[in-house]
């Protein structure tokens, strides 16, 4: 298992915001967490990389074989980016405004001791031209920025991609592009993909299994086809009915 979560509880100032009894993602597998905003799905995702600030976390979280909750800061920094990569919702805001994309790429590769020749393959995999490396974040489109974030993960050799609403800030056509890239990479490179989304249409096209979260709790989980075809929980039915 690339990701293995047991009895995860995340609290902010004593308030329970996410409670996930069980979550496993294997290599080449895609699991989606769905729910409304505030359901605790993003918090769950961030806690997998130890990126929640000021939160109290209990349970057991293993990512790429490392126990995240007890790992040393150094061990944690080593899996971040290099083995498990994050793709965020707002693609341009996620890139430092005064840093060229190429500079970010170069620094990240150096940090994890990777070679520069991984870059070309990574850019090719997400269908981006090398020229993009010379640009600043405000000079690229949302779709380009998002594909660049995925290219970063590929170039760094990540085995796990954690995607937090990767398409919700994009236009519909661009969404399809990004989803296409994710789906292809998962097949070609045997990536483990954990996707957080409120977009059930997207989830149905890519996820193998689904967790439905509401108010911090998992209300339903199972194979995507089953959950989406025959929802057991009324909340899942509501979400499905909200689809156009």
């Amino acid at each position, binding site marked *: 298992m690339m990701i293995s979560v047991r009895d995860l509880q995340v609290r902010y100032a004593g308030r329970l915001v996410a409670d996930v009894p069980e979550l496993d993602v294997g290599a080449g597998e895609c699991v989606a967490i769905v729910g409304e905003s505030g359901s605790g799905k993003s918090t769950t995702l961030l806690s997998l*990389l130890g*990126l929640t600030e000021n939160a109290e976390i209990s349970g057991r979280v293993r990512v790429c074989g490392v126990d995240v909750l007890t790992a040393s800061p150094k061990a944690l*920094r*080593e*899996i*971040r*980016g*290099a083995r498990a*990569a*994050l793709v*965020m919702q*707002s693609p341009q*805001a*996620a*890139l*430092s*405004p*005064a*840093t060229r994309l190429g500079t970010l790429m170069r*620094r*990240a590769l150096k*940090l*994890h001791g990777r070679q520069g020749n991984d870059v070309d393959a990574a850019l090719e995999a997400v269908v981006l031209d090398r020229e993009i490396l010379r640009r*600043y*974040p*405000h*000079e690229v489109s949302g779709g380009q920025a998002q594909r660049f*974030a995925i290219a*970063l993960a590929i170039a*760094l050799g990540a085995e796990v991609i954690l995607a937090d609403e990767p398409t919700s800030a994009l236009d519909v056509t661009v969404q399809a592009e990004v989803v296409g890239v994710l789906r292809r990479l998962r097949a070609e490179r045997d990536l483990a993909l954990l996707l957080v989304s409120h977009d059930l249409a997207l989830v149905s096209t890519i996820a193998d299994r689904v967790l439905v979260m509401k108010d911090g709790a998992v209300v339903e989980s199972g194979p995507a086809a089953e959950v989406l075809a025959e929802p057991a929980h009324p909340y899942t039915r509501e979400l499905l009915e909200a689809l156009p």
Partner: protein
Amino acid sequence: MLAYLARRLGQALLVVAGVVVLTFAVMRLVPGDPAVAFAGPKATPEQLAEARARFGLDDPLPVQLLTYARDLVTGDWGTSLRTRQPVRDDLYLAFPASLELVGAALLVAIALGVPLGVLAARHKMRLPDFGVRLGSMLAVSVPVFWLALALQTVFASNLGWFPIAGEYDTSLDTTSPLTLWTNITVVDALITGNWPIFTSTLEHLVLPALVVAAYPTGVIAQMTRAALIEESGQDHARLERALGFGETSILTRFALRPALSPVLSLIALVFAYAIVNGFLVEAVFNWPGLGRYAAESIRSLDTPAIAGVTLLVALVYVLANLVVDVLQGFVDPRTRSR
């Protein structure tokens, strides 16, 4: 960018016009007759009348204002009542010395303030942060004239580590005379390779520059800290964390450049403030700059000279603001395309 520059330039010119009007108004508030001050108390009525005519004091005020503005533009900044020299020539000698002092102080302030701000942001709400914040608040609260006196007494008079006053050892003028290019002693000494005067000037600069640097250092440290903390709370810092970068590396390699943009705009403000603060420090260290010139002019109620200093500093301030606006375009690429 060009349109933006043109608009900023227009605004600046408007402010300059206002500054001229205000300076003129302050000068006209002076009790006592400038003609008497110029011609002297024993002047005959004819001499007085001549002086009045010469200064255009019989014209209506708006005409006087226009004459004043026209003279300023053509480079006639009046004649000092004290030195009997054109004010412009006096300023031309005094301003470079002030620039030298304030320039050195700002370099010190940036070299200290930015790293201190980074340190505080890196350990926010922890001991180093509180140390930097309290220290910078002390630095902006200290009366400069008192700090100048204290450092002079301790490090120059008592310990003898640094010279007590002056810009450089003037006895060097005979042994290794200085060729003037910019009138900024340290720069002239450097470009003409006059090492005795260069080192002497540096020695003389240390104490006054440190005193003038106190306030800007505090302000820059606080501002850098605040901007960095704001920047490191942005989305991109989360991605950088997720890529495995450490906090220090995020602050110095990703957050610092966008964070410096507000710090830069502050430096223009601080620059003008430092020049005026420099006045007090110049008085203590007998530095031959604008401050000493202003102090002497004030003592002898030399209104053209005071107006000249006032105008010059205000112009420098307006200019500094303009320069910073342009510089910001280079630091923060987002403003360039706007």
